[in-house]
Each structure stands twice: as structure tokens, then as C-alpha cells.
């Protein structure tokens, strides 16, 4: 059977372990894929009724959304989503880009090491906390600022500002990565020609990173579209198209808010029910389109920088010469400024005055343009850097205001009784112990379900799956679900688990819903962490006679461990802070004792915060206390992930 001296004849009885493991992994990964496909089909299936009853065209173009009178015109909702998102990006993109430029190109090393984590902390704040802050601080502030335009404060403007703040970390982080990945040889070549740092940044680095920055913008859009809780709390939720269209002071309602508001009351199987699913479907399609564009752009970036250094020379010579803006571009730009200023100013005053002011603005812009040519490059750089610094400070100030407000007003509420007691007087007094316990249970339950599935699928996708069409489809499905708004998961969870399977509002329904929500994230981050392990480690192991399974378990996974762990902790942090998925599947507003069975509902911190803020006047102290506790839990998880990542980056230098 085997020769002693050579020993490399296969024994026919020895079964190939690699093939078995491949099969097992494929099986487990398939479960993940099946879940994902199931969800997509479920949403689609349930929306067919609406398509048949209402008609797609009528649905998309109808002006009135009034389910009680059987009117399902979704145009105001779609418009609301688009307007709020557009406003948010308009706010977040320039500020985010400026901050990213500051962090990447201007800030000294030490400052960078502080600023980057700060912007990541932003990302960790749960949306319900943002919504809370928006409701309690932002809306009254706007009401003070524009007393004539804003009666109540809740508005498109409030929504866009809040959403913009929430999209900032995504935009800053992705843009900064894009800027950093511009090869330093580009910068060096430019500076060697005598350009200042600012000129290099403006003319070389930013254009070179434009693909990544576009991806950042698009990802920010994706984040904004899917936001539920925050917009629900500050936009006023009136399903009407603003009059005129650019009236930022009008109240609007987004698709996500519609879902969150109407799901609890809807009758299963009714047209209304189906219409909600159709809304969810439209939302998912929007996300799909956005992801698609982002992916194309990312691919283009990779291709561009794969080219040799010689191409950088042609790139630089093209860009560094003083580009004359063509006269056509100039007039287009001026027209745009004029129109925008007309739109905004006319909200405040009459038509004639707006025109006058807009014209003055145009003249002002032209004068600045003329003057700027006279300023020396060195001074221009000083002005530019100062501006960037101011923007960055502004961003930091916002963060500190938000966190500071919650900490300052929340600390007084914290006491031993608060942490360990039960709520009383509808939550105005007493403690939040059951909510804390409920959140912890949800986290653990999610972990138990999502972890094995997600990691196995990630390992399978990166190590064992080929590059077939099927794999590409699977990855698209995972990415789609990755970007899907959490409220859609809530909808799915309610319909499939609570109602269809009859689990009722229960811990198990909430855990499954949350697990399904984080499953794509864990799968993806595991896959990426494993792919990041350099190929030559695998080769070294295989070249010594290790099998693929041994290589995967003994070399690859340990090397990717910190990446995988970070992904898990981040997902759990997100799960802890999410409201929409658990709102319809697991939570109740009050419990007097800790439930013993997983089929019982639970209280949870995010939902408790929302409930107090939206429904219980006079509970401000406890609102802040709840917000603070939630913030502490979620932010410590994010910080833990950061520490692990930092620690491992120090040790492992590929």
C-alpha cells in the first residue's frame, strides 16, 4: 500500500479530510445563503399583493399616502427619503471631506492618532441616541433660530442636519482611507516641482482619490437612506411633499419612518400590509443600486493605482498645471449658486429682495475669485489650512456637545437604584434594570446564533469557494442585506417570526431578527479578515506538506483572529444599539420582573429610550439616564474593538 522509503503513495483507505471539511463548510455556509435568499423572497412575495391591487405606477406616482382611506401613493414618502438624504449629504459631504483632508494631509501625526478614533466614536453612537438628542436639543434650537419659519421645529432641515451628522463618520473614514491610499510618490513628485502642500492636496491628491471619495459619498447616502429612528423623531412625519419643493422648513416623512410607524397597527394580509412590504422592497432596491455604483467605483480605483509609477507622471503633469476653468463651466457654476441662493432666501423673504441678495452674492463670488489670483500660494495655503482646521474643530465640537449633553444631564440620574431598580410611574421614576438585562440577553442570544454561522460562512467564502458565478451572486446577496435598513429586518422579523411562526413578541424572535441582521456583517468581515492574510503564509504551510484544512485552522484563522474579533464586537455593538429590529419583535414597555423563558418579551435600552422620549412627557431625567447607560455600553464595545485592532496591528507587520 505505501512504500516505506518514499512514503508518498496514498493509502487507498485514508479518506481525504480536505474534501470532507469542504463539504461541511459548504453546507453551513449554505444555511446563511438560504436565510438571505429567504428574506429577499419573503419581502418580495409579500409585496406582490400591493403590486396587484394598487399598481406599480399608481404606487410610485400617487400623491397621497393615507392608508385609512385606502390611498397608497408613495411619492411623498419617496420624496421625503430623497430630500432628507440629499440635504444630509449636502451638509455632510463638504464638512466630511474637509475633515478627512485635514486628518490625512494637514494634521500632524499625533493629532491624527486622536482624530481618527474620535470620528470612529461618532459611528458608534446608536441612532436612537441621535434621535433623542435631535428631539431634545436640535429641534428646540432650530425653533429659536427660525421662529417665523418653524412652528414646531421638526422639519426636513432638522432631519437633514441630524442625518448629516450621522453620515459624517462614514464619509470621513472612507474619504480619509481614499486619501491615504494615494501613493506618496504622487505627493513627492508634486512637491519636488515646487508646489505647496495645499496645491498638492487640491490638485493632485484629491483628484487622485476622487473615486474613493465618491464611494464615501455613496456609502453615506446608503447610511442615510436606511436611517429610521433619528428621522422619525425629528422630521415631523407628515406625508406631504414640501411646498415649494425646496422648503427646508416643511415637515416630511421618510419611507423608513412610515414602516416604523405603521407596522404595529397593520393587519396581516391586508393591502396595507402588502403596501408596507412594497415600500421595504423599494428601499432594498435603492440600496442595491447604491451598492452597485459604489462597487464599480471601488473597482476603478483599484485598477487605477495598480498601474506603474510612470502613469503617475502623466497624471501629475495633467493636473498640476494651472487649470483654466472653461467659461462654460464658470457660467454653469455661477448659475447654480444664483439658483440655490434664490431658493433658500425666498423662504425667508419676498421675491424681489431674494433676487437682489442673490445678485449681490454672485458679484461677491466673482470679486473673491479675482482677488484670489493675487494672493500668494503660501498665503492661500494658510487660509486653506485654517479653514480646514475650523471645520475639524466644528465637527469635534458637535461630537462633544452631543456626548457632553448626555453625560452631564445623564449623570445625575445614575444611581444604584437606577441601575438595579424597576421602572415606575410609566418610567418617569425608578430604574432600568430590566432594560439593561434585556439588552444583555439580546446581545448574547444574537451572538450564539450569528457567530457560528457567520464565521463558518466567511471562512468558506474566502478559502473554499471558487470564483464562480454562483459565488458572485452569493456575495451580492450578502452585500444587499448588509446595506438593508434595520427597519426592514424588523418588518421581516415581525411578519415571519412573531406572526407567522406564532412566537409572539419574544426574546427569541428578537435574537433571531438581530442575528439575521448582523449575519451578513460578520460573514463579510470574517471573509475580509481572512483574505487579508497574505498568500505566502498559506504557501509556506502547504509547501511543508500541511493539508488545506490544517493550513486554514492552524495558520490562517489565528492570523485573522483580531480582524474577525473586531468584526464580531462591532456587529454586537450595533445590535445592542438598534431599535427598529427589536421594536416589533421582542420588546415591551414595562416589566416588573425578569422573564425566565426565551419566549417571553423583554425590555431593552434603545426601545426604552425611544418610548420615554416619544410617549412619556416629564421623564427627561430618566431619558438622559437611559441614554447615558446605553451610550456607555455601546461605546465601550467600540473602544474594545479599537483596542484589539490597535494591539494586533502593533504585533503583526506583514
Amino acid at each position, binding site marked *: 500500500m505505501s512504500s516505506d522509503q518514499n512514503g508518498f503513495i496514498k493509502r487507498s483507505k485514508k479518506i481525504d479530510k480536505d474534501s470532507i471539511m469542504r463539504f461541511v463548510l459548504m453546507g453551513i455556509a449554505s444555511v446563511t445563503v438560504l436565510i438571505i435568499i429567504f428574506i429577499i423572497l419573503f419581502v418580495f412575495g409579500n409585496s406582490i399583493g400591493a403590486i396587484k391591487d394598487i399598481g406599480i405606477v399608481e404606487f410610485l406616482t400617487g400623491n397621497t399616502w393615507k392608508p385609512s382611506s385606502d390611498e397608497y401613493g408613495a411619492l411623498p414618502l419617496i420624496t421625503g427619503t430623497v430630500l432628507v438624504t440629499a440635504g444630509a449629504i449636502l451638509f455632510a459631504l463638504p464638512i466630511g471631506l474637509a475633515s478627512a483632508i485635514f486628518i490625512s494631509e494637514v494634521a500632524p501625526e499625533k493629532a491624527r492618532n486622536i482624530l481618527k478614533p474620535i470620528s470612529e466614536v461618532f459611528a458608534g453612537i446608536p441612532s436612537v441616541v441621535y434621535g433623542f438628542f435631535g428631539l431634545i436639543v436640535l429641534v428646540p434650537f432650530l425653533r429659536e433660530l427660525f421662529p417665523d419659519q418653524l412652528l414646531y421645529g421638526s422639519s426636513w432641515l432638522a432631519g437633514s442636519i441630524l442625518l448629516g451628522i450621522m453620515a459624517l463618520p462614514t464619509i470621513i473614514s472612507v474619504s480619509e482611507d481614499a486619501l491615504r491610499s494615494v501613493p506618496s510618490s504622487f505627493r513627492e513628485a508634486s512637491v519636488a516641482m515646487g508646489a505647496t502642500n495645499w496645491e498638492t492636496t487640491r490638485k493632485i491628491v484629491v483628484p487622485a482619490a476622487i473615486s474613493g471619495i465618491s464611494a464615501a459619498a455613496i456609502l453615506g447616502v446608503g447610511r442615510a437612506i436606511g436611517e429610521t429612528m433619528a428621522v422619525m423623531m425629528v422630521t415631523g412625519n407628515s406625508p406631504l411633499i414640501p411646498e415649494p419643493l425646496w422648503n427646508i422648513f416643511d415637515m416630511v416623512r421618510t419611507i423608513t419612518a412610515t414602516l416604523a410607524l405603521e407596522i404595529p397597527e397593520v393587519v396581516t394580509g391586508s393591502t396595507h400590509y402588502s403596501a408596507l412590504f412594497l415600500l421595504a422592497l423599494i428601499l432594498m432596491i435603492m440600496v442595491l443600486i447604491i451598492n452597485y455604483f459604489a462597487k464599480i467605483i471601488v473597482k476603478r480605483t483599484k485598477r487605477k493605482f495598480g498601474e506603474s509609477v510612470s502613469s503617475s507622471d502623466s497624471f501629475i503633469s495633467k493636473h498640476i498645471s494651472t487649470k483654466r476653468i472653461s467659461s462654460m463651466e464658470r457660467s454653469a457654476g455661477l448659475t447654480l449658486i444664483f439658483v440655490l441662493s434664490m431658493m433658500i432666501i425666498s423662504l425667508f423673504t419676498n421675491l424681489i429682495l431674494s433676487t437682489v441678495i442673490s445678485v449681490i452674492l454672485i458679484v461677491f463670488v466673482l470679486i473673491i475669485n479675482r482677488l484670489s489670483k493675487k494672493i500668494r500660494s503660501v498665503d492661500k495655503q494658510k487660509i486653506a489650512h485654517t479653514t480646514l482646521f475650523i471645520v475639524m474643530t466644528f465637527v469635534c465640537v458637535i461630537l462633544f456637545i452631543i456626548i457632553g449633553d448626555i453625560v452631564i444631564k445623564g449623570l445625575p440620574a445614575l444611581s444604584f437604584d437606577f441601575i438595579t431598580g424597576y421602572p415606575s410611574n410609566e418610567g418617569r421614576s425608578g430604574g432600568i434594570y430590566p432594560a439593561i438585562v434585556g439588552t444583555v440577553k439580546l446581545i448574547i442570544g444574537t451572538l450564539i446564533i450569528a457567530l457560528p454561522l457567520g464565521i463558518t460562512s466567511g471562512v468558506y467564502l474566502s478559502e473554499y469557494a471558487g470564483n464562480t458565478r454562483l459565488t458572485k451572486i452569493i456575495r451580492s446577496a450578502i452585500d444587499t442585506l448588509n446595506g438593508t435598513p434595520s427597519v426592514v429586518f424588523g418588518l421581516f422579523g415581525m411578519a415571519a417570526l412573531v406572526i407567522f411562526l406564532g412566537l409572539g413578541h419574544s426574546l427569541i424572535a428578537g435574537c433571531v431578527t438581530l442575528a439575521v441582521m448582523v449575519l451578513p456583517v460578520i460573514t463579510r468581515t470574517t471573509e475580509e479578515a481572512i483574505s487579508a492574510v497574505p498568500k505566502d*503564509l498559506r504557501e509556506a504551510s502547504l509547501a511543508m506538506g*500541511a493539508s488545506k484544512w490544517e493550513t486554514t485552522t492552524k495558520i490562517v484563522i489565528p492570523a485573522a483572529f483580531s480582524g474577525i474579533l473586531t468584526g464580531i464586537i462591532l456587529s454586537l455593538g450595533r445590535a445592542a444599539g438598534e431599535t427598529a429590529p427589536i421594536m416589533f419583535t421582542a420588546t415591551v414597555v414595562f416589566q416588573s420582573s425578569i422573564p425566565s423563558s426565551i419566549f417571553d418579551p423583554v425590555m431593552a435600552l434603545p426601545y426604552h429610550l425611544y418610548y420615554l422620549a416619544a410617549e412619556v412627557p416629564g421623564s427627561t431625567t430618566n431619558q438622559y439616564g437611559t441614554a447615558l447607560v446605553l451610550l456607555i455600553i455601546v461605546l465601550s464595545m467600540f473602544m474594545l474593538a479599537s483596542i484589539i485592532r490597535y494591539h494586533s496591528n502593533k504585533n503583526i507587520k506583514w
Partner: protein
Amino acid sequence: MKDNVIEINNLNLWYGEKQALTDVSFPIRKNKISALIGPSGCGKSTLLRSINRMNDLIAKCKIEGQIMYHEQNIYDPNVDVNSLRKKIGMIFQKPNPFPMSIRDNITYGPKIHGITDEKELEKIVERSLVQAALWDEVGDRLNQSALALSGGQQQRLCIARALSVSPEIILMDEPTSALDPLATSKIEDLACELEKEYTVVIVTHNMQQASRISDYTGFMYIGKMIEFGDTESIFNRPTENLTERYITGRFG
């Protein structure tokens, strides 16, 4: 011939549609250093990786012909490729130690192949590091991370790691291209030491390296073995015009 530990017969290899090796035949002699030289893309690395079947990892790779090792074609379906790779070790261009301690790097291979006794593993660690001329430098800090070593030391660690499973043949794929001249010199001396006990095949883009250390040299060009012979003849009076032009620097 009894001196030939490997015989390559009419080896043809395709990556998908593209033929990367055409009709390659030559012997590898026991306890000698055989070098493969040639311009970039000539197929020398591909040829080397065929010897320990690392090309199996590439999906669209097709092979025709034979590589005879111990009178057995290694591409025969009966062959257990993991055992094959135990006998034929490989050193790569960029040093690739595992992100573990020095000791764990070297015990990885023996453990995979079933050795569990602690004492025996310690002996293997020492023996391998001695043979790789690294023991003097790291023998007192085996628990340190392998990544803390310099490039040259890391490469010698990779050699020690390959030696830990007692191979017969050591394949080296441009082992010094990522190293400075001093580290390169140490690895070259090491190779000359190793050929006493092992058989070495080295791919190098630096033909002076081949002339310095090898006993036999093969010149490859666009997937073909143009000429193979003892090193002195190849560098003194090559029979093929193409070889002469390459060696005198007229191209490549």
C-alpha cells in the same frame, strides 16, 4: 542514472490557454546544487513549483509529462501530495515566517506530520537551527516572535523550518532577491553547506549567483529549457547562441 534524484521528462504546462512550459527535460543530481536562470517570465519559477506540485493550487493549471522521483511520477493520482511536500521543501522569495514564536515556526511541520514528543521536538528545533546557521543568533530566544528578526534571519528561519521535516530536496525560489548583499552571502554559503546532506535546486534571476554556487545550471527562455549542463561549461562555452547572448548580457 543512479545519481539522479529527480528526472524531468518532457514536461508541458498550461495556465488556461497559455503554454508556460514546453517540453522541458533535465535531471537533478543528488547532493548537488542545480540552478535555473533566465529572463523574467521564462518559466523558471513555474518549473520549480511543478516539482513540489505547488502549481496544483492554481485552478486552470494543466500538466503533461513526467517528473520522476524515486522511480515514481509525482503526478500520478495515487500520490499523496502532502507527503511529497514533506520530502521536497520550498523556500520562497519573500521570507514568510508564520506570525508565531521562532520555536513554533519550526515545530509546526513536525507536528503536522505526527510528532508530539516534546523532547524530540526540542531536538528537531535545535538541529534545524544549527543546520540553517541560525542557532548561534537565536538559540537563547526561541520564544521571541519570528517577525522581530531581520530579513536575512527570517529567511534562514524559513530554511530551518523547511529542514525540520527532514526533506531530501530543497527548492529555493529566488531566496535572496529580497535581501541585502551580506544576508545574501550568508544564504549562499548556507546553500553550499546544505548540499552535502541535501539536494538543492535554486531559481535565481542573478546569474552571477548561479555561477558562484551551483554545480549545474539550466538556462530557460520562454518556457523552454534551452541548455542544461555543468556550470563551468555553461558559463565558459555555452553551446547555444541564445545562452551565450544571455550570459554576456546581450539581452534579458
